[in-house]
């Protein structure tokens, strides 16, 4: 091995060592703020710890066994599924549509892209308050507008379907820009030559999008769906502010139900077991979609 190549390898090694040192603070932060609390939550999920009654020292799977027969938990899974599936689908479809539209825009109008990021920058509690007002007939300018024409807009927040719809709308409004950003970045990475070649072959714009652009967007679409789906499992501020879990208990998603059990009922052990299940679901989906993504990329 020549002297130069040894020197080069030495330099690479030093560089890699430098990189490793640079990520040490991040690893430390993740350990301290993610792994330690997660381990604590896992430990609590096997305990019978209660905020008021304390603990009788019972350790085991009792919380997990209780989940199997808890009707409210099963209903919360249904609510989460509805919110996540319809919410994420809406965000990805709208995000993709807006991204495709913005991608075609050239010149100074490109600055208008920033406008679409505004909903993403608004804190979730503020978003929830905005939509609570819009869905409250006595406060809503939408209702006031339709009233002018004698049209009565239904009260969404007093039925389960309407309340779920309201949460999905608020969640979509604030989160579609994330999907839009990722898809826009992916669109910019696709060579225009492919579209031009398709056009030369006589393909319409719709066919070009469906058969050329969309397949190339698949990895980005999968990634954005994964991120949004995992995030959607954590539904809380919209429910807390807009419906408070109502009407009745019909919009109590699983994450909200974990809060109810932990902080309203004081049943910390049981609440932790719900949170652990949510974490495992998110981890499982991440693993599955990451593998899928790898396969698609290949």
């Amino acid at each position, binding site marked *: 091995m020549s002297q130069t190549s040894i020197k080069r390898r030495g330099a690479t090694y030093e560089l890699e060592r430098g990189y490793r040192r640079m990520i040490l603070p991040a690893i430390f932060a993740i350990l301290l703020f993610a792994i330690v609390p997660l381990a604590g939550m896992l430990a609590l999920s096997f305990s019978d710890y209660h905020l*008021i009654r304390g603990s009788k020292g019972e350790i085991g799977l009792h919380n997990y066994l209780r989940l199997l027969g808890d009707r409210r938990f099963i209903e919360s899974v249904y609510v989460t599924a509805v919110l996540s599936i319809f919410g994420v689908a809406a965000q990805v479809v709208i995000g993709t549509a807006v991204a495709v539209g913005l991608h075609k825009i050239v010149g100074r109008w490109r600055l208008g892209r920033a406008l679409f990021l505004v909903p993403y920058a608004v804190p979730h509690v503020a978003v929830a308050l905005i939509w609570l007002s819009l*869905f*409250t*007939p*006595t*406060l809503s300018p939408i209702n006031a507008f339709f009233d002018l024409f004698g049209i*009565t807009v*239904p*009260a*969404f*927040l*007093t*039925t*389960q379907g309407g*309340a779920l719809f309201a949460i999905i709308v608020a969640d979509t409004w604030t989160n579609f820009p994330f999907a839009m950003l990722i898809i826009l970045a992916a669109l910019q990475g696709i060579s225009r030559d492919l579209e031009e070649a398709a056009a030369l072959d006589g393909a319409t714009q719709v066919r070009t999008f469906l058969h050329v652009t969309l397949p190339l967007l698949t990895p980005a679409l999968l990634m954005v769906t994964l991120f949004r789906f995992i995030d959607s499992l954590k539904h809380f501020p919209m429910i807390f502010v807009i*419906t*408070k*879990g*109502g*009407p*009745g*208990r*019909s919009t109590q998603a699983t994450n909200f139900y974990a809060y*109810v059990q932990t902080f*309203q*009922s*004081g049943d910390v052990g049981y609440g932790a077991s719900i949170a652990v299940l949510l974490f495992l679901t998110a981890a499982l989906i991440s693993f599955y979609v990451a593998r899928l993504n790898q396969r698609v990329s290949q």
Partner: protein
Amino acid sequence: MLEIAPKVHNDEHAAIALRAAPGQGFNMFIFPMIMRAYGGKFFKDYVGGDLTPAINSPETLEALRVYIRLINEFAPPGAGNFNFAEVKAAAQNGQVVFTVEGTGVVTQIVDPAESQYASVTGIALPPGGPAGRSPAIAVHGLGIPATSRHAEAAARFIEWAVSPETVTKIALSEPFSDFTTASVARDPAVLAKYAKIHPDYLRLRTEALNLAIGHYRPLIPEWPELGAAVGELINAAVNGLMSPEAALAAAEQEMRDILGQ
């Protein structure tokens, strides 16, 4: 309320707005007022120490039917999800003719600086029922844990915190007047401050304070859980997800489960 509501309810204005959103501090601040006025109660004998749930009674059922009727027939659309913010806004904007609210909210409804309809808004004690009048009272308890290492110092702090002098200072410096000592309402500075908001306010506030019961919402550690559960079921009945009978039966059963009975 049921007599007057149909007379004042029309397409322009709804008769009433009440808190209906589920929660121990939301609908469970208002509903117990109606429940107690009809003779309903949470437990068989709270004062005597018998905490057997007794919410599933004909009296509470009658009260719940009144509450449901008021909200579904005489409140604005969407009122089944109203909380104090929506109730307050509806009253301040003149969208409803009357409401029943906490004193902190009432001051904002009758204050000319806060409400455009303040000059034509009157205040009165909440209406009574067959079992009398039971105003809600928005106060909080201060307790000393059994494990406290400085119980005497804590007791001295509580004495200072709830003394008429301290409470008078709070009544003067804060926008709310949820004092628990009637003598505070006789302080000239307090009188002057609240007379500006509404001339009858302090007198009625003191009357309500004397009529109210300390355990308006039961003073037990399990109350947050009980109140949340009952509030959710009451809200389900208001919005037609359950019948009033089923809601009260479920509420009583859940109260038993929570209390381990």
